[in-house]
């Protein structure tokens, strides 16, 4: 029993963090926003060189063969640096779906090596979202198609979809309504085979969003702490006032008690535990709430400065706000939790001794 990360995992995370710190400073992100596509091919290339796109591709296909637990760390970095790129769709969710196909399946062989070398983008369409992120740049779209007996998996080339852009309040998001027609050519898995794959994808996506939310919360806390230490009013740093201290202390506490939930959910997904969905929903709720709290407290600490476009805080707040409802809003995840804990006919296994059972 050792509920923490290995030194290697931490070292890899730290390397990624240092990489983003220099390659994805806020002013660089603002430049990316202003481009038409809203994405930087150069940044994506460098990310691939760091090994991030290879992270969860099986070793047989040239990847690093890591998984959910490593992503629980990586997604926090994606959030902390507000990386304007739905990287995890290509590098985490898509490999998860593709690696669920039989060994030697043509799609695996075709796409997984390209995920590793960073030469493709894969977008993911799931009914829980009204949009598909980064569909305009996708080489392939993996689309869910709910049917009576489950949920089919379709692999749709970019040329076979029509897109309508859906502008988001978060300028770093590029969202699209996707019109497409499922047919036998695009179908990869039938409803029965696809359902568990899509269920796992939803859980991974919730974990990914949760991790980003915690990263965002930590960044907003850091920004607000720096501001509180420097900004003076009434002749002293505002960080010396108890009201400001307590705002920020609340954020610290909420983050501290959300992170381990994220890690436990990642472990549950990695092990395919039966209650992995419950843990993923818990992680999403706890992490998104921490980010929401951090945004509220950080803007309050920043005062009017926090309400401006120029000050970086807004980039992280908007991302935190919109991720709150991505891949299942609060109602969705609460409903999953409630169904399992409160509505299931027999009392689930809860209470002392059940957390790692």
């Amino acid at each position, binding site marked *: 029993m050792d509920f923490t990360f290995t030194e290697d995992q931490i070292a890899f995370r730290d390397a990624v963090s240092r990489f983003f710190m220099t390659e994805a400073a806020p002013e660089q992100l603002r430049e990316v926003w202003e481009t038409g596509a809203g994405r930087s091919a150069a940044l994506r290339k460098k990310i691939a060189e760091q090994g991030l796109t290879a992270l969860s591709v099986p070793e047989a296909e040239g990847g690093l063969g890591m998984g959910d637990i490593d992503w629980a760390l990586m997604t926090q970095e994606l959030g902390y640096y507000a990386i304007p790129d739905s990287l995890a769709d290509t590098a985490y969710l898509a490999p998860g779906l593709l690696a669920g196909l039989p060994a030697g399946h043509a799609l695996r062989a075709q796409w997984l090596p390209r995920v590793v070398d960073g030469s493709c983008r894969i977008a993911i369409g799931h009914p829980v979202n*009204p949009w598909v992120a980064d569909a305009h740049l996708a080489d392939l779209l993996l689309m869910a198609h709910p049917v009576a007996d489950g949920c089919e998996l379709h692999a749709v080339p970019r040329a076979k979809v029509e897109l309508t852009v859906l502008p988001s*309040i*978060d300028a770093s998001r590029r969202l699209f309504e996707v019109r497409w027609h499922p047919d036998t050519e695009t179908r990869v898995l039938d409803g029965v085979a696809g359902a568990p794959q899509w269920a796992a994808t939803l859980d991974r996506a919730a974990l990914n969003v949760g991790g980003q939310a915690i990263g965002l919360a930590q960044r907003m806390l850091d920004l607000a702490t720096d501001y509180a230490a420097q900004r*003076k009013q*009434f002749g002293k740093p505002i960080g010396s006032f108890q009201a400001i201290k307590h705002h920020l202390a609340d954020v610290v506490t909420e983050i501290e008690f959300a992170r381990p939930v994220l890690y436990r959910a990642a472990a549950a997904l990695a092990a395919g535990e039966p209650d992995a969905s419950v843990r993923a929903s818990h992680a999403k709720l706890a992490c998104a709430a921490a980010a929401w709290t951090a945004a509220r407290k950080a803007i309050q600490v920043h005062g*009017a400065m926090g309400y*401006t476009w120029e000050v970086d805080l*807004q980039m992280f707040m908007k991302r935190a*706000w919109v991720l709150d409802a991505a891949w299942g809003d609060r109602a969705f995840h609460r409903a999953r939790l409630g169904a399992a804990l409160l509505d299931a006919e027999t009392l689930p296994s809860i209470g002392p001794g059940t957390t790692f059972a």
Partner: protein
Amino acid sequence: MDLTYTPEQQAFRAEVRAWLAAHAPRTPLQSYDTREGFEQHRAWEAELAEHGYSAITWPKELGGRGAGLIDWLVFEEEYWAADAPLRVNQNGLLLLAPTLMEFGTAEQKARFLPRTARCDDMWAQGWSEPNAGSDMASITSRAIRDGDHYVLNGQKTWSTRALFANWMFGLFRSDPESSRHHGLSYLLVPLDAEGITVRPIKALNGKFAFAEVFFKDVHVSVENRVGEEGQGWHVAMATAGFERGLLLRSPARYQRTAKRLVELYRRHRGEAAHDGTLRDAVLRAWMGAEAYTLSSYHTVARLQHGAKIGAESSTNKIFWSELDLDMHETAMHLLGARAELIDDPEVHEWLEGFLFAQAGPIYAGSNEIQRNIIAERMLGLPKN
């Protein structure tokens, strides 16, 4: 306790309702944070003024109709019920005007108030400075007396409307040896004066919601000073009370939001059913808007009986700003994943309102400052 409107009040309501139904813009105006939108709003308020609806509680000779505060509440109810535009000149109408009426000379009143009511003059506010936000007494912008005028140097910031307004009211340090809230003077400054530079500040929503204003040897006539020299803090505080208190945020605004939220819930009842907190949040929105309305009517009744608004205006500021934030957060949660899509017609106003609501607990005196005021002035707890 008499909870019926007088026949005159009822008639006034009917008149306002009919007039707005005939005259209020049928399509939303552009944002007044754009030049075009500002002009549209100005024109609309000039039309209001033409029919005596711009500043109904002012004396007739100054451009109002001498109406009482109940009439004002009634007017606001009809105005918000009609989905009429946000008011672009509220700085002048609600912040400056009460100050001028109390402290201004007869000449100042006659010169500025009718023009303000008609929106011939549009006002920016000049309170905050880069190092004088919550701590407003740290003002360093100077207005040094030189014969019959002051020479202004320094900088104001977070000045709403400054980009397109033609006048600013604000506080300047007229005694360079003074500190804190001593030695300040309350001045009216034409924004087209030589030496003034206005630099827009982009807000969260990407629009230029306020501006920095720089003063370099700007000459302002002593006739533009309101109140005595060095008494500016005292003069301004009356205005600050209005800003926090009853007048800046009329209850009808929040009742309209609460009603829209109830409608939103009713449209999305199916999705919301998964999450009991949403239902409760909508109920709390209605309860909050109703409480704010009732509190306003209660305050107006006490004012009519001769009471004065004191530190209670701080409870008001906290209540409406948190209510507004809560209501908009609830709307975001009800809208779910669609809440980020700014072009979605059901989303747009909620999303803009959500961003704007973020500023509520910060501006007009941060809620931390308001809580200090409540504890120190209403409860008598010692200053730090």
